[in-house]
């Protein structure tokens, strides 16, 4: 395994996540896309930590990101529940009341 391969995996994962965020209409799917993007970043953290800086800080930061992602998922799912209760759907297109 080398740094480049890991970075390619991470970039691929990021692109998958971004693609999911851009194309999916379902809010839960968008959230899953966000998780992919975050995990792509995690891979980068761990990879650079292992191959470049040789200190453990990057890996700890990855754990922080995972915790943050869990918290984010909890908040986001709660918002979706409220969204569903209000509009009867979790399609993100319908939630456009802040449109200019």
């Amino acid at each position: 395994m080398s740094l480049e391969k890991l970075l390619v995996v991470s970039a691929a994962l990021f692109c998958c996540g971004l693609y999911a965020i851009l194309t999916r209409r379902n809010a839960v799917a968008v959230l899953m896309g966000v998780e992919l993007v975050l995990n792509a970043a995690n891979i980068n953290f761990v990879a650079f930590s292992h191959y470049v800086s040789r200190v453990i800080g990057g890996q700890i930061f990855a754990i922080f990101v995972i915790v943050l992602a869990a918290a984010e998922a909890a908040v986001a799912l709660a918002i979706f529940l409220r969204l569903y209760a209000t509009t009867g759907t979790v399609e993100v297109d319908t939630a456009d009341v802040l449109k200019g």
Partner: protein
Amino acid sequence: MIRYAYIIPFLPLLGFFINIAVGKRLPRKGDWVSIATVGTGLVMSIVIFYEVFRIHDPNFKYHIVYPWLSLGGRFVINAGVLVDNLTAVMLVVVTGVSTLVHIYSVGYMHGDPRYSRFFAYLSIFSFSMLGLVLAESFFFIYIFWELVGVSSYLLIGFWFEKKSASDAGKKAFIVNRVGDFGFLLGFLLLFATTGMLGYDEVFQAIREGKIGGTLLTLAGIGIFCGAIGKSAQFPLHVWLPDAMEGPTPVSALIHAATMVAAGVYLVGRVYPIFTPDAFLFIAYVGFFTLFITATIALTHRDIKKVLAYSTCSQLGFMILSLGVGGFTAGLLHLSTHAAFKACLFLGSGSVIHAVHTQDIFEMGGLWKKMKITAVTFIIATLAISGVPGFSGFYSKDMILRDTLIFGMKNPQHMILFLGTLFTAGLTAFYMSRLVILTFFGKPRDHHKYEHAHESPANMWVPLVVLATLSFAFWFKSPFSDKGWFEVLVPKPASAVQAAVPAMAAHVLPAEEAKTAHAVPASAAKAEKPSEAAHAAKEEGHAPAAAAHGASHDEHLKHKAHIYAMVSSIAIAGLGILLAIGVYLFGWVDPDKVAEKFKPVHTFLVNKWYFDELYEVTVINGTKALSRAMGWFDNNVVDGLVNLVAQLGVWVSFLIGKFDNYVVDGAVNGMATATIGSGSFFRRFQTGKLYHYVFVLAGGVIIIYLVKAF
């Protein structure tokens, strides 16, 4: 007690404040407050006078000063008190007459609706006058000078419901202002040149030659203008007869002892500053006054008007005397006149109180009804006429002597003596006429005669006191064969004389040919050694150098005295006899005389047409000027103002347009631009999440591409 002299003016001031504030609610309406305050002042003045008299030093002077107002650190205005022999005499004269007038007013003003206010006014007047007497600088004498003017205005116009009285008050005030303006200019001129305000400092500065020549003459004449106004001298004498509209006690207070005396006192107080030219001016002003007003007094029917004109005339005597160098004589006449003229005025008040008329042709025979008034009135008349044994003889005799000496030294001014002597006769004549028509003969108006009665005691007691003071006995000095007044109030050395000879030295030769101008200066030079000798002799050690001039001068003085005394007794006797002959025994019918000299009589009855002259010149001139000014104001000034206003309107119109189109346009343009840009940019705000993320990702890619290449 001299140390406490400064308290004296404040006593009447206290009385004024009490009476003006709560007088009405006090018992007896507060008259006792005023009487007590001014009476205390009288007691203090007498004590001061006694102390000064006991010291008996011609040069006595008590002078304290403390800085009062500092102006920018450059100079300081001092407040202070100056008590010398002259001040001590004036204090007694002023407080004495004032006290008696206060007491007299209790009877005279009884039942007046503004009784307590009258006493308040009397008090403020006494305050002003006492302050004037005690002042030690030109600044303070000017302040009190104006206060006297104001309080005299209040007193003369006291019965302001009568139009004539309020007019008389205004006339007195305005005419006085004319003179006061000269006074102000005069002392400002001195102040500008010497930088000093205190008498002694100014005299010293003049001795040092800081001001001299024509400028000093002008300053002297300017200050004398104040005296012309206050002492009712020609040509500003017109206010005094009109001022008789005031209550009679006011006439006695203002026109006998205080206000009119202020002018004479001022001239006496600043005596050293006058140049010979200024003295000549003073002498002629006094001369014209005494002659003109005496002739007017001959024809008047109103008892108070006659006394008023006689006051003018007597003041003319004093001013003349000061002008010809008779310093002591003038001020002595001031003191004696204060007593007998106050007595005459109060006596006339008593008569008016009794018969309720002022026309002497409606009186007559009152002798039987009012013995005390008549006797005191006659004593005062004898005094003013100059009958030996009375005070007026003594002072008038001295005036005539000094005028005669002046005339002998300057023969071209002999007219002063002759005219004055003639006027002394006129005085005796018209005063006797007044007495005879009032008290003797048959009653001409029986109704009024029946109702006449002697006045109450608080009115006749002052009369008796004043009549007693009209005798000559109190002028003898216990320490010398001269009168004490002559010893105590000697002529002050002129401050000018030190400077004049030096100037005259190069001026005189050129001007000697034109005698009229040069003589006063040379007269001053001639007088100078004699003056020094005179003063020195009294102290008992005559310098040898001046002895020759002194003996010559003494001789001249003696000779002049004899002439003056004889002629004045003769002319006074002649005047009195003529009056008795004409008005008591009817040798000549006065009406026929009046008919025969009708133009002269009309001229005199109309008071030499002075009021008419002023009406035509000053008053109409002022009115015409006012009209011209009014026209100028209405047309030129208003036109300018309106033009400016019109310009303003036009400019405002233009500015309004600019505001509406340019400024508002800019503001609205901003708003429109904001709205336009807002509606353009709102289209990017779709609310769709993936749009935003797309822009985000696109942005990142673009940044990456930019960085990469």
